[in-house]
């Protein structure tokens, strides 16, 4: 199967290693991976800020870049959720485009969801010596039902022990532009998340969305925690955890 990798703008800019880890995992699953070179952003910042026009334009761009793939996979529940659950809203009243968009939605997946439910991989390349705790990012959890998938996959990583933290489904406070517009509330929410991560005693917090990663890591370090690693689930599964 031909899988289009939607790298996401944050991975492209901030953590290219996660993109390569995702690529490797998809190839490990036997997929033929294409990475459309013109891809940029799914349009979520505009959509969630009330700028429908720009979101519409970027959704069309994603459609044209990816609709020829059998599947579209993103290492982000937030971007996959944007495509899958919100794109149709942008094309109401445009039946021809809407039909194409709906076909795109049906084949768009968050990475761990795809690996566990569609590709059904038996093994993963990575190993990890230590304990991790998993933060359920909101869009993946509530828009796409990503809950057991990453845990099933992490269970296949030799050496890895999962220790759940308290309130693992509570938002970390990122919320896209919310983190800047409502910075004080956002930091305080991140603080509560960090306290739960600390209390879990895990060596690393693993999650599936870069926005939450940056938020949690930024707050952990500001709190003086230099010990707990903040890792994307793709890095752990692929065994590409940078030292």
């Amino acid at each position, binding site marked *: 199967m031909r899988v289009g990798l939607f790298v996401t703008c944050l991975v492209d800019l901030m953590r290219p290693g996660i993109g390569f880890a995702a*690529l490797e995992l998809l190839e490990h699953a036997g997929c*033929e991976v294409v990475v459309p*070179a013109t891809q*940029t*952003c799914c349009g979520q910042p505009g959509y969630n800020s*009330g700028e429908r026009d720009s979101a519409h334009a970027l959704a069309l761009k994603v459609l044209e*870049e990816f609709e020829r793939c059998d599947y579209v996979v993103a290492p982000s529940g937030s971007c996959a959720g944007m495509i899958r659950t919100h794109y149709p809203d942008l094309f109401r009243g445009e039946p021809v485009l809407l039909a194409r968009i709906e076909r795109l939605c049906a084949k768009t997946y968050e990475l761990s969801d795809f690996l566990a439910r569609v590709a059904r991989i038996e093994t993963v390349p990575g190993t990890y010596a230590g304990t991790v705790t998993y933060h359920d990012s909101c869009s993946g959890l509530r828009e796409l039902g990503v809950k057991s998938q990453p845990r099933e996959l992490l269970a296949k990583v030799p050496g890895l022990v999962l220790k759940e933290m308290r309130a693992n489904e509570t938002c970390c406070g990122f919320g896209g532009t919310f983190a800047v517009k*409502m910075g004080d*509330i956002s930091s*305080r929410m991140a603080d509560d998340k960090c306290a739960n991560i600390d209390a879990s005693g895990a060596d690393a917090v693993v999650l599936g969305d870069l926005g939450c990663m940056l938020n949690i890591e930024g707050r952990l370090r500001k709190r003086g925690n230099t010990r707990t690693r903040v890792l994307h689930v793709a890095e752990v599964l692929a065994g590409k955890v940078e030292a």
Partner: protein
Amino acid sequence: MQVHSIHFKSRARAAIADAGLQRGLAKVDGFAARRAVVVREFGDFETLRAEGAAVRDRSLANLDAWLERFEAEAARRGAAVLYAETGDEVAQLVIDICARHALKKAIKSKSMLSEEAQLNAALAAACVQPVETDLGEYVCQLAEEPPSHIIAPIIHKTKEDVAALFERKHARPRLAEAEALTREAREVLREHFLSADCGISGGNFLIAETGSVALVTNEGNGRMVTTMPRVHIAITGIEKVVPTLEDLCTLMRLLPRSATGQTISNYVSVLTGPRGAADLDGPEHMYVILVDNGRTGLVGSDMQEMLRCIRCGACMNHCPVYQTIGGHAYGWVYPGPMGAVLTPMLTGLENAIDLPQASTFCGACAEVCPVKIALPDLLRKLRERQVERALRPGYEMIALRAWAWLAQRPKLYAAASAFGVRALRAIGNAEGMIGAIPFGSGWTRGRYLPAPKSGRTFRALYARRKKPLGGARG
């Protein structure tokens, strides 16, 4: 109530710094935990939620017809139904009723509409003494503070706060335990129950087929308020009508479970008309004031589903933003996600420009709302209206549009991002953390921004790879 929502951010900051408030807010978790238990015990709560939403939609689809039916049935049973378009009109109607029957003291059970109408101040000005009898509302009245939660008005207060307040206001020795404090409040309130000639309540639901007002309470004060005084006035929003008693049953299976995690509240009253010839108790006169106060503006609009709300509070109990800042920061009667939608809708978008932004869209509220209101989607629609009406700061719009413009031009985007990544990496400290960025103080005040790990973008690194890893390169 005055609308203070324009000061949301500064009030939120103060709330975060208020240690007592933060301790009080920890109690919200208890509601959520109890809800989870009873929902699990119930079994198929999802189907029930769908039924609840359908009941409310059926009411709203023919709101005028159901209200007419309610009015006719209530009148047939001797209750007078009055309409108020604004909060001021509510206050005027109540004052007129008090004047007509020469009423001097009004005992009140919980009513958010009374807050919308600032009724207590208006009554006091008209020489009618208002006395809140719901324990939480009573504390609010003594403290001269508005409620901070729609079902737990003093969630922001600790037991110690209440003890200190009672000591001061009741001029009695200070008590320590919640039970003793409650007993003291009861003793003080008993006098008022016995001497009041007017009872003012809210109304959780209106039943069209019988002309009844349904009241859901836990303290029993609602019973006293609606039966002991000579005159009972129920005040509620026009959207609260449901067609049948059976519909009420559906909603009653949802409301206490969603609100407090109870399978049923301690009291459920269905009040139908004033005291009849054969009745042993009840008021001589019953009035029902149905309030619009902006609600018809939602009817038939793309925001109509907000009117399904049954005021259970589950959305705020599960909202991490509410849990962080409490209810007062929202600046009007209704806090949390439902308040963030209702306040701009009922008081004007321009008076509450930050409320639609006060959400991470985490979706926890929509997941628990008993009538399946898609609160994040409604907040997003409000954000769209803010953009249409140019109610967001100019720099924010410029930044968003610049990003979208760039993202539609892949070559330019690649060049700009290659530069941006290098620049960001350069300003990171030895640990790869950035302490300040232009226009990003909202982020960096409370945390670092982790710098890019590589000085290059994925796109650049991928293009440089000798052997494409399987398949075409787009």
